[in-house]
């Protein structure tokens, strides 16, 4: 009686192990990437981030998934709305941890609190919008990465660009987190050239009129305005200056290219002319082809991002998918790191991110290192100037002068 029972057990064991081997067929799994962004408050930013990640994920899924060892992983992208609330952002990260997410692609809100929760679970967070200096610190926040221009880089490049022009700059910032971070970066950037600063002034976010603040800047004998704030603040300051007949040069961070600024000034397109902003370059020395190729894939998947204004020739203006480009690049770095780590989650993935470089959308290399978790180097900050509702690189900056004009009409 005992022998047949042993034989049966042996047969069952062999069958079970054969089933486990799967006869050479690959096991299937899911790799979750969570997009934590303010979809309800600034939908343009949130959707751009999600679109970038989705585009990279679709490419992997169409090719059969991400192969890791004997398994193939389907990439799933989940959206979580922060509503610009750090508390909600933190709750979203906790949920991502509970769902065993591989990575979180973040707009930046709430990262000061959420990074610890993600770090404890070995989940990397990549910021693709906010540039605050303290957000990324490889020593203190080993799981936080960023692919977006840093406030430090933007501020120093703006100072480097403006100081030699002999301008006396009024530094205006709004009281949003974005504005406060920018003001701190500008203070450091202009610290060695106090003579170039005519005025430092905080303005309220969402004010109906910025006339009084612009008047103060004019009375301080400013010969340039640098406005660091939400898109509505930038549009409001431009509107206040031009409506008062003050044709002062105005400079701004990347938020100036948000469609809101142009929509706000749509009734007076000439007021926008000359507004100069700093941002990360969309193309590298290889030329615009890598970027156009990405833009075409983006438009084919999600359609073009219409700004909602037209050029003087009546052509509708479309927004280059810059934020989506950063999110797309991070997703590609992540997938390469996962392959390198041979696992889809945990500290090995975080460590592998520090050793991975891929070809970025703009033709440049994108990657991180042990000491640098910034995917956009300060050198990549360029300047563009609005003219007729579209922008083009300036010609009086060495980097910007080498860059082509990106097409912004269909």
């Amino acid at each position: 009686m005992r022998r047949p029972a042993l034989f049966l057990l042996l047969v069952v064991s062999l069958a079970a192990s054969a089933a486990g081997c799967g006869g050479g067929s690959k096991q299937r799994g899911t790799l979750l990437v969570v997009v934590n962004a303010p979809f309800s408050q600034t939908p343009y930013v949130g959707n751009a981030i999600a679109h970038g990640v989705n585009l990279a994920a679709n490419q992997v899924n169409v090719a059969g998934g991400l192969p890791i060892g004997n398994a193939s992983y389907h990439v799933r992208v989940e959206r979580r709305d922060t509503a610009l609330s750090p508390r909600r952002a933190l709750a979203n990260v906790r949920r991502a941890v509970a769902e065993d997410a591989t990575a979180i692609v973040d707009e930046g809100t709430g990262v000061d609190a959420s990074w610890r929760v993600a770090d404890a679970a070995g989940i990397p967070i990549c910021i693709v919008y906010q540039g605050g200096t303290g957000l990324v610190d490889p020593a203190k926040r080993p799981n936080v990465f960023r692919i977006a221009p840093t406030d430090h880089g933007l501020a120093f490049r703006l100072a480097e660009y403006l100081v030699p022009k002999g301008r006396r700059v009024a530094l205006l910032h709004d009281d949003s987190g974005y504005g406060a971070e920018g003001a701190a970066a500008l203070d450091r950037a202009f610290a060695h050239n106090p003579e170039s600063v005519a005025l430092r002034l905080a303005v309220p976010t969402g004010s109906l009129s910025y006339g009084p603040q612009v008047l103060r800047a004019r009375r301080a004998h400013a010969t340039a305005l640098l406005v660091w704030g939400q898109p509505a603040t930038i549009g409001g300051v431009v509107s206040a200056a031009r409506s008062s007949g003050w044709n002062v040069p105005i400079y701004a961070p990347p938020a100036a290219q948000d469609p809101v600024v142009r929509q706000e000034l749509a009734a007076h397109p000439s007021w926008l002319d000359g507004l100069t902003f700093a941002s990360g370059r969309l193309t590298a020395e290889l030329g615009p082809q890598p970027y156009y190729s990405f833009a075409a894939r983006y438009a084919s998947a999600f359609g073009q991002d219409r700004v909602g204004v037209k050029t003087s020739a009546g052509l509708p203006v479309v927004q280059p998918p810059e934020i989506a480009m950063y999110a797309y690049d991070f997703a590609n770095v992540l997938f390469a790191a996962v392959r390198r780590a041979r696992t889809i989650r945990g500290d090995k993935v975080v460590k592998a991110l520090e050793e991975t470089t891929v070809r970025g959308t703009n033709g440049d290399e994108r990657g991180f290192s042990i000491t640098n978790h910034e995917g956009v180097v300060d050198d990549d900050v360029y300047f563009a100037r609005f003219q007729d509702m579209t922008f083009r690189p300036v010609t009086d900056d060495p980097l910007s002068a080498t860059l082509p004009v990106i097409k912004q009409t269909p």
Partner: protein
Amino acid sequence: MSGALVAAASIQIFLPAPTAQLSAQPPLRSLAQTLETRYRGRIGSRLRVTVDLDPTGRPVVVRTEQRLTISALGDYFFVVPAPLVSVAAAPGSAAPPGQRAQGIVWQGFSPGRRTLAALVRLRTGAAAPVLPLRVRIGRGGIRIANATALSVLAYDAAVSRAEVAPVIKELRRAVGRDELPRPGSVVVPTTPPTTRIRAEAVFAVRGTLRFGQRRVRFAGRIGPGAKRVLTVRTGSRERPKVELVATPALPRELLRAAPGRLDGRRLLALAYRAYLAIARAQQYTRFLASPDPTGPTSAAFVYRTAPAPAAVVRTFRSGDDGGLSTLVVAVLVVLGVAALSGLVVLWAHL
């Protein structure tokens, strides 16, 4: 017609170029992987390698400061392979270096001129064997030996003096001006046999020995034509503290010897030795690789006595750190065994 035949049969021997790579290292190697190396113009590399020595002269820590200068407008991306422990930006660097496990990543845009400077702590086990000098500190002095020698293949041809003379002239001209010579070649009638020849860099060394307050300065050159080993002895019976700087140099002494007495074959051997000495010295100016393999390079090696890394002193710790000390554990074990024995005895008597 016969002249043409002779010309057709003759072959040209190229002497080692000043940038020839004579051994696998230097530059220091690692398993660094990169997508590509991209830059415009030339990149100059200036190195300062600092070697901390233990009291006997054994390297304990190797650091280097590398200053790369890009001299053109355009994008750059490259990885400098290095067996590194850590890297940080050096003063004056226009950008921070990126540290990877096997190299230093540089990426950005040069507006026409860009200085990229990094302070690198190298893995001693990987870097020390590649250093150009071996230093031995003894009682009352120091012995500095050249560690760059290696044996390479060369042609041993019976050429005419007239054929080699222009090569020697060019070498002497360049060395006299402290510049790298143009690559040299000679024409020989048939393929000559090969021989092994010693390739060794020349180093100019200067430094100081410190015996308490007393200082003894020294200087000299080691390498072909100069001394093979530099020895400094004093009457002191204590081991000195050492600080010396060694820089790769051109083989001036080698070429100073009057070539008038040498035949063509020996002149060719002399030319070989000189070109090899230059190539070997150039190799050490790229102790850490430069992304531009033919760009201008320079290096200085600083050897200095430094306190060895503090040994881990194991002291008895009281239990106030929350853990149990070894002694406490030992006492508990002894008490436990005694109690167990007692229980066994008790059980046996029940």
